[in-house]
């Protein structure tokens, strides 16, 4: 907001030697009759203005976040196609999902692709961050370089990888041929296709997670390392016993974010599959939940069923979020009990 300009101050900002405005306590001086409006406005100023300033966010969120969410929920209880009117179906869309092998196939694919892309990705990111944390030459350059894949567009990256993994002309099969192996059907066989897609995801997100880990590692006090080194701990030992415990919350955070990303995986398999990308290959061998949702909604026009899948995905993510909360809470209480035992040599409980 611009400074309010009053005629008396001739357009310049009010000088500091202004008669002081009534302070908070002076409200009682006004007889309620005369200052009714003024005091109301004043109260409004105090109470309402913050909300007014926050309103743009909440209004846009309501229009573009909350409303679509609720509307999708409403749609998922109907049979509806674009341009048609909705017919009430109750929970039928959900029960038919439970009996649909394509839904379970997509759920399983989402899970397997999620695991084979997330686990190596986070382990590699940890290693990378650990390396970047040392004083090495050209550190700044490397830190920028690991982020480069993240800055590439999904489409461009996937197209390049699709060429590399091409069964007939691809570089990877050619190299395998030189090494004396049979060519691998990187698209039509289930596991090779899922691995190829996971490679794209891993390539893209490893650097991003590495930078998050690096930021957390920078905050680990240096004297812990010095103390460990004095005790004769190797670099590897330091990494395991100092670095990892210190950045545990960050690791948990990246696990959650990557899980959400993996659950919503869409662009990579779709583009990797080319013309049969939406069905996740000719035998649905890499169709994820998002692809199934897209296929239902925009290919066959069953918007109700697509909405049901969207809500199932939301519930899945809420479940994962709940698990995350539980894990972090138990982590916190564990670390508190560790702090109480100053000796720090309590036998670790199972699952730590």
């Amino acid at each position: 907001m611009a400074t309010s300009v009053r005629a008396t101050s001739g357009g310049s900002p009010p000088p500091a030697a202004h008669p002081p405005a009534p302070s908070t306590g002076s409200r009682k001086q006004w007889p309620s009759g005369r200052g009714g409006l003024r005091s109301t406005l004043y109260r409004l100023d105090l109470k309402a203005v913050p909300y007014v300033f926050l309103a743009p966010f909440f209004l846009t969120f309501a229009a573009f976040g909350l409303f679509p969410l609720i509307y999708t929920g409403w749609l998922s209880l109907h049979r509806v196609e674009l341009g048609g009117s909705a017919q009430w179906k109750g929970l039928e869309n959900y029960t038919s999902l439970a009996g649909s092998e394509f839904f379970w196939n997509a759920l399983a694919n989402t899970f397997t692709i999620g695991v084979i892309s997330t686990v190596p990705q986070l382990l590699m990111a940890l290693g990378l961050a650990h390396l970047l944390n040392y004083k090495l030459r050209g550190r700044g350059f490397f830190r920028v370089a690991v982020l480069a894949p993240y800055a590439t567009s999904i489409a461009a990256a996937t197209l390049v990888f699709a060429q590399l993994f091409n069964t007939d002309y691809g570089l990877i099969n050619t190299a395998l041929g030189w090494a004396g192996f049979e060519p691998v059907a990187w698209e039509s066989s289930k596991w090779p296709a899922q691995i190829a897609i996971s490679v794209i995801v891993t390539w893209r997100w490893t650097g991003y997670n590495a930078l998050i880990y690096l930021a957390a590692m920078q905050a680990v006090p240096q004297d812990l390392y010095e103390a460990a080194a004095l005790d004769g701990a190797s670099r590897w030992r330091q990494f395991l016993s100092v670095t990892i415990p210190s950045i545990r919350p960050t690791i948990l955070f990246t696990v959650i974010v990557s899980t959400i990303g993996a659950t919503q995986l869409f662009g990579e398999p779709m583009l990797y599959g080319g013309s049969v990308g939406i069905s996740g290959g000719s035998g649905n061998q890499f169709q994820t939940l998002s692809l199934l949702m897209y296929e239902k909604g925009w290919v066959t026009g069953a918007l109700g069923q697509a909405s049901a899948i969207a809500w199932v995905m939301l519930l899945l993510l809420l479940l994962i979020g709940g698990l995350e909360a539980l894990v972090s809470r138990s982590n916190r209480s564990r670390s508190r009990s560790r702090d109480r035992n100053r000796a720090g040599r309590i036998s670790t409980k199972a699952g730590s």
Partner: protein
Amino acid sequence: MRTSSSRHGRGRRTVINAVAAVAVVATGTALLTGCGGDSDKGKSDGAAGGEQITLRIGTFGSFGYDDATGAKLYSEYTKAHPNIKIEESNVADGQKYWDTLKLRLSRDSGLADIQALEVGYIAEATGPAMADKWTDLGKTGGADVGAFLDWKVKQATTGDGKVIGLGTDIGPMAICYNKDLFAKAGLPTDRAEVAGLWAGDWAKFIQTGEAYKKSAPEGTSFHDSASGLFNAVISSEPVQYANAKGELDYENSPGVKKAWDTAVAAAKGELTAKLRQFDEKGTWNAAFKNSKFATVACPSWMTGIIKDQAGPENQGKWDIAAPPVAGNWGGSFLAVPKSGKHTKEAAELAAWLTAPAQHAKVFGVNGNIPSSKDTLSSPAVQGAKLPYFGDTPVGKIYSEAAAGITPAPISRWDGQVKTFLTDNGILDIEQRGTDPAKAWENVKKLVADKIDK
């Protein structure tokens, strides 16, 4: 920004500030949420006599009307009707075009005055959900419906007899073959002899494939794609995905069974290059360039694709022969949405654009095979040739194929079911060696699961 300390920030000035803040925020959100109304629908209402109006036409792919690369029909029409301006908006991808059009129809906003429709979606457009959204071009615009091929008109006719679309082109089908590869495999190369190899029966086409395979040049296949073959066979069948009532009944259709069996025979017999047509990775396109296969099912619009993909280095290698059985694969219509402001003028323009004289002009520039009876038999079409195919009488071959087309009843789910049958059924057998019976079961499950009837 206000920088004065909070001590000064009390009292009336703040009140004014607060009110101003509310006002700004309110207008801001109004701007955010007040989405734009409909797009400009022409400059005036009610086109009486000499009033200036703009007609908008929405197309996809290449219709060949425009003034830049087409037959310059727009400038011709506006010369004769000085009060009319024509604007074309073109989308390359037909599927995306249709999805957008459906959305706009459901909202009755953002529609052009004339919208092109592809034959794959015409049954959906004439179906119960959409039939009432279109102007009856049999009654407005003065089109001579009798000039079109009867089956073309029938496809665009609703249950209660309204004609909602006027035919532009059709997709009569032949077989394009690579003369070089045929010669190397010891097969004849003369187009009449080649056509004789398989005349009348798709089974003979498979037999020709077996013969080719016996002495095929290294690394080549007889046909490009089993799913392409499926499409070709089903295009030539009188019963396809729908029964006579226009209900989806692909499981019991003799046409689907025949196409499926033929395609499976080709896949199992290793007669195909195991490619998917129009594959986005360009593998299919590359195979044209490298002469990886000897034949491809060839609707009239495929000749342009061969020219572009096989490239100048293969000029003169390809020829066109009559198909085993004549069929139609593709083609379009022009329709006029009811909600437009100038439906009468739009209907007149659509009628003019699809009249036989204009069909001939478009064919001359773009090679689109016309859907009007007289144009098909006109000397301009009969004598037409394409430079890339040398002296091949393209016009004659395709007009003969068009004469042999028996239209099949269509249902609104045809395009969808076709995708499942080809991409998830045939392609799966071809590329992953799935057992055909299992693949068929899988297609049935897919249709049951994904088509929300």
